[in-house]
């Protein structure tokens, strides 16, 4: 009997050791979030909010003001703001914090990034249940603020936040890209600026602008420096060119189609213009706005959310005033292959809510995230740049309509270029698109831009861009972004990729746990049987 007790004690000790270990393992995979029946307002909640601003103090102030207003409505929820100026840095920090179980509660992000976050089990809270909740959902009855109803969120923007049929984010702001143009120079070169730009037009004018005088000054600007066409985001450039030309990029399921003949053809054209100096990129040369404002660029493609940096009268400037050149700025949609069927990217920040062990904490996070959709926040933030509010409630409000109607009244809040950029997106919401989201789509996006960057750098350095070069480039870029390691058909959007067999140590631990439970069960049965037999014996006596 003593031996049996020792054995049981040993097994219990083993169990005591194993259970916390399995608990640790389990902490990487939270239970699926379910919406609580009611929000427990007797408790205090500490919520972290990781946000991105465009190095814009007004945006920072709006975040801070939104937090203060929200906390006054919900005094038991305390929101701590952590600011970033770079989506990539947020992404990297979130990835790091998933591993340690220290993700923020609410985070500004892109759906591409969420797809990667979701490779952890139940890391990101699905929002459909929250959307529909009668009390705390969109337009919910128990909310202490005027939230938009589900149908008041622009459906297309909301759809961009769905992954695998489930919403994992809410849109926060939307923008697209615009071409900011030195119209004065275009006309000086003898061209009339069309309402709809084509790629052919941009290339032709850019090449024409390269004419120099005997002293090496460009005739159009009288300066030694001119890059007629600069693109800020080359990943967007490639994605949009492919989309406009009906060429492959990826399937919805995550099959990579980027490395095709159409891409090669586009790269060959881009290389020709990079070689002459008619075209360059942000990564190679610097911000398009700086060149545009210095009279050293004619076509600058950048986000509508960068409009306040564009033009002679731009409220934000990054060059010294003595370098600023006066010119007329025009704003157009990005160049198209088929101007009758324009297509442009939809982009801009979304907000996701991270899952936590405590559903009440998630609900508190959701209450704050949803607060970002209120008119006060939406309209104020949209006005900081060429952003568009993501709710119809805000877009159709008198306040916002009044704002739009006052374009050009001043050089700051109603800066004409900013409002033209905003109007551009409002007029073309139906022409916008997004790319499929899956685990790996963020890398594919990077790869698309890298193809353009590499081609431009190569021709500037005297290399020949031909079929052999492009074959090699495809291999290098595919390998660099590990696209060659993505399984065909996609590592699924919901992050349910086959992770292969369990490691030996995990299998051994699980086996030990199983053996332990069997031994305990045997011991319990043995004790019960023995007790019964003793009772029988006692009764017999």
């Amino acid at each position, binding site marked *: 009997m003593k031996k049996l007790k020792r054995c049981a004690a040993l097994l219990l000790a083993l169990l005591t050791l194993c259970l916390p270990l399995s608990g640790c393992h389990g902490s990487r995979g939270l239970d699926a979030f379910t919406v609580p029946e009611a929000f427990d307002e007797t408790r205090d909640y500490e919520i972290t909010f990781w946000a991105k*601003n465009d*190095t*814009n*103090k007004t*945006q*920072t*102030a709006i975040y801070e003001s939104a937090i203060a207003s929200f906390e006054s409505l919900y005094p038991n929820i305390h929101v701590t703001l*952590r*600011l970033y*100026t770079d989506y990539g840095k947020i992404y990297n920090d979130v990835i790091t914090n998933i591993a340690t179980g220290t993700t923020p509660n609410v985070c500004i992000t892109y759906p591409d990034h969420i797809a990667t976050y979701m490779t952890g089990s139940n890391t990101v809270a699905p929002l459909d249940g929250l959307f529909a909740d009668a009390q705390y959902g969109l337009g919910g009855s128990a909310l202490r603020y005027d939230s938009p109803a589900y149908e008041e969120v622009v459906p297309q923007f909301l759809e961009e936040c769905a992954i695998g049929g489930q919403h994992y984010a809410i849109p926060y702001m939307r923008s697209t890209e615009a071409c900011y143009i030195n119209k004065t120079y275009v006309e000086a070169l003898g061209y009339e600026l069309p309402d709809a730009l084509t790629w052919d037009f941009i290339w032709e004018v850019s090449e024409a602008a390269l004419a120099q005088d005997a002293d090496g000054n460009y005739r159009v600007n009288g300066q030694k420096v001119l890059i007629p066409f600069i693109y800020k985001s080359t990943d967007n450039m490639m994605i949009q060119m492919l989309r406009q030309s009906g060429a492959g990029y990826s399937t919805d399921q995550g099959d990579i189609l980027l490395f095709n003949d159409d891409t090669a053809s586009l790269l060959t054209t881009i290389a020709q213009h990079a070689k002459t100096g008619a075209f360059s990129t942000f990564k*190679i*040369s*610097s*911000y398009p706005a*700086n060149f545009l404002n210095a009279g050293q660029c004619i076509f600058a493609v950048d986000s509508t959310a960068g409009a306040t940096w564009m033009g002679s009268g731009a409220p934000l400037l*990054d*060059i*010294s005033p003595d*370098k600023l050149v006066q010119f007329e700025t025009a704003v157009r949609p990005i160049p198209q292959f088929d101007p009758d069927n324009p297509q442009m990217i939809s982009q801009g920040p979304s907000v996701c809510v991270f899952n936590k062990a405590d559903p009440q904490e998630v609900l508190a996070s959701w209450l704050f995230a949803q607060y970002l959709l209120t008119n006060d926040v939406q309209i104020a933030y949209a006005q900081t740049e060429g952003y568009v509010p993501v709710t119809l409630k805000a877009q159709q409000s008198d306040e916002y309509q009044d704002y739009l109607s006052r374009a050009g009244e001043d050089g700051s809040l109603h800066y004409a270029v900013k409002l033209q950029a905003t109007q551009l997106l409002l007029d073309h919401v139906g022409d916008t698109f997004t790319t499929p989201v899956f685990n790996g789509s963020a890398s594919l996006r990077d790869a698309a831009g890298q193809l353009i960057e590499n081609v431009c*750098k190569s021709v*500037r*350095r*005297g290399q020949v861009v031909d079929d052999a070069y492009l074959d090699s480039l495809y291999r290098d870029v595919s390998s660099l972004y590990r696209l060659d390691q993505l399984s065909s058909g996609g590592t699924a959007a919901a992050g349910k990729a086959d992770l292969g067999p369990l490691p030996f140590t995990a299998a051994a631990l699980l086996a030990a746990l199983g053996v332990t439970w069997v031994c305990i069960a045997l011991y319990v049965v043995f004790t019960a049987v023995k007790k019964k037999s003793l009772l029988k014996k006692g009764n017999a006596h």
Partner: protein
Amino acid sequence: MKKFIALILALLMVLSLAGCAAGGKDADVFAKSEGTMTYAEYAAAPVDSQVTIEAFVQAKQSWWEDKATVYAMDKDGGYFLYDMACSEADYEKLTQGAKIKVTGYKGEWAGEVEIMDATFELMDGSYVAEAVDATAWLGTDELINHMNQFVAFKGMTIEPSTDADGNEAAFLYNWDGSGEDGNDLYFNASINGQTYNFCVESYLCDNTTDVYNAVEALNIGDTVDMEGFLYWYEGANPHVTSITVK
């Protein structure tokens, strides 16, 4: 007399040996191997051309995904090595003074001349540059000739910046005050009636460093001596690495 002459000769021999040793060491450490550019040749090379230089690591700015950004110098000039291919293990070997041979392409980004898409190999030798006093070059065409060098600015007065609320401040988080602790610090300092902008680049000197904390403690009107690297962004944008309030 013989003893005296012997003593003099011995002294001369020692001195000459010491001289040879010193001269030899200097000559060796700064000597360029075959195929390596002098700083003058590098400076004259056109943008986008391939360059090979030998220089000494002065400061490391960042490492991420096998790419390192480093300030390096030789005795004639400074180099900014941007996103140079570098394993994490090799990054640890890039200690201050370490000599490296770098091959890459000359680039220019917003005015900053740099070597990009570079690879490097470690070499024997070490050199840590003294800061060159660049105070007198502020606002002159001479300043750009010292781009990326380790320089000093002395006797400057901290001038106000305007923070996010429109108030005067001795420094800002980010260029416009939109940031927070941990972001780049920007501040103004003047000399001879002219004000210039300076930066503590948070990747180069994060918020745990002395310089970061010293700048956070600045007051308008303080007189300071500074050292740092002469980075360029649409004009001079010195990345300060030390500051002393006088």
